């Protein structure tokens, strides 16, 4: 765990003791990242504002369930934010997120990611993502980072829904195999 993650883990531990100053510091350090994730997924600032509030209340109440042995604090917090946004998205009956004047915040440009350490978790994943076919790669990024459903991906990529489902399923299988291969000592 690097210094930054160790500091975040310490603040999370302090939250379990109702240390509100630590919580304030944790918010200051991590909220731009989580808010970026929520805006990318929800594409609507009003929903993202509400989801960010709920995310941090969840973090405050459940900090004790964070286990450093099972991953980095930022991954744990990002997943809380993502699931909050996904719950909101799946409950929406209208396509509110397309009505907002949303600006693209997700990079589909792979060149800027070349600086990542290839042995880090991020480096391994990016390496494996590059090995996917272009359409399958776009599906994974758009689904994970922007919350697109199979139907929405089918519409966006102008491909039959069965094909999209197959891209997603096969991509996950290949990613798993590739991660296993590249992470092996």
């Amino acid at each position, binding site marked *: 765990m690097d210094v930054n993650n160790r500091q975040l883990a*310490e603040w999370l*531990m*302090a939250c*379990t*003791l*109702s*240390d*509100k*100053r630590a*919580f*304030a510091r944790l*918010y200051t350090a991590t*909220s*731009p*990242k989580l*808010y*970026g*994730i929520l805006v*990318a997924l929800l594409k609507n600032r009003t929903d993202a*504002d509400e989801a*960010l*509030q709920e995310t941090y*209340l969840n973090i*405050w*109440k459940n900090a*004790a369930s964070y286990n450093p042995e*099972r*991953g*980095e604090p*930022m*991954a744990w917090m*990002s*997943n809380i934010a*993502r699931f909050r946004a996904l719950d909101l998205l*799946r409950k929406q009956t209208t396509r509110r997120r397309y009505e907002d004047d949303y600006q693209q*915040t*997700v*990079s*589909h440009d792979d060149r800027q*990611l070349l600086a*990542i350490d290839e042995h880090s*978790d*991020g480096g391994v*994943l*990016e390496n494996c*993502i590059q090995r996917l076919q272009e359409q399958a790669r776009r599906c*994974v990024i758009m*689904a*994970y*980072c922007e*919350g*697109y*459903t*199979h139907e929405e991906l089918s519409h966006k990529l102008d491909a039959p829904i069965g094909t999209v489902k197959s891209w*997603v*399923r096969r991509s*996950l*299988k290949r*990613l*798993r195999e590739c991660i296993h291969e590249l992470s092996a000592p």
Partner: protein
Amino acid sequence: MNYQHPELQASLAGEYVMGTLHGRARQRFEHLLEEDARLREQVRYWQQRLHPLTDRIAPIVPPISIWQQIAVRVGMGDEREHRSWIQRLGLNIPTLWPAAGVCLLVIAIAVVMLLPRPVAFDVDYSASIHNEQQQRLWDIAVDIQHQQLRLSPVAITSRGDTSVYELWLLPGDGTAPQSLGLLPTNDTVVIALSASIAWATANGLAVSIEPAGGSPTGLPTGPVVYQAAITAVNGS
């Protein structure tokens, strides 16, 4: 569908984390998650592995109003100055620390002196506190019948200044932590316990660094350095 099939589990867990599993399929999966530890492990795998994709998302600083609303909802009030309740009362913490420290020390000594020597110690709950290198620092044991807490240093040295390690119980209902006393760095100490401590439902233990004599406020004031789970012994 055979949900026990490893390949299907891996695929469903991946789709769940990606967000492409929705509607009834998502609900069904979440129901299965509650019962299946292997499935939960698959979900954790994908959560950890796909997380670096968030590096593709540009961070955005949220409006200040969001923090203000969160602060109110966690009971912080106006936290712009990060003032504690004691400061808001106009009391000066630095001048209170020595007095509070002396009081706590006197109480701690009195408790230890007045406690009759236990003839037996039946361990109902135990915990070990480790550092990041997984080195065991203290062993903690709880005897419910005799209302005793045993604190045994294993591989810990004093801090080299006047600060001390304080042990806290994290209540299961999410309320404020309860101080269990100062952790010894030389010899094992047995102290009397309050009967009102809900060990069975507790979320665990934590250790913070406090000024001499312990926390002056009744809540942790220094950094939390260690955490440990509590284990029930013999099905307590």
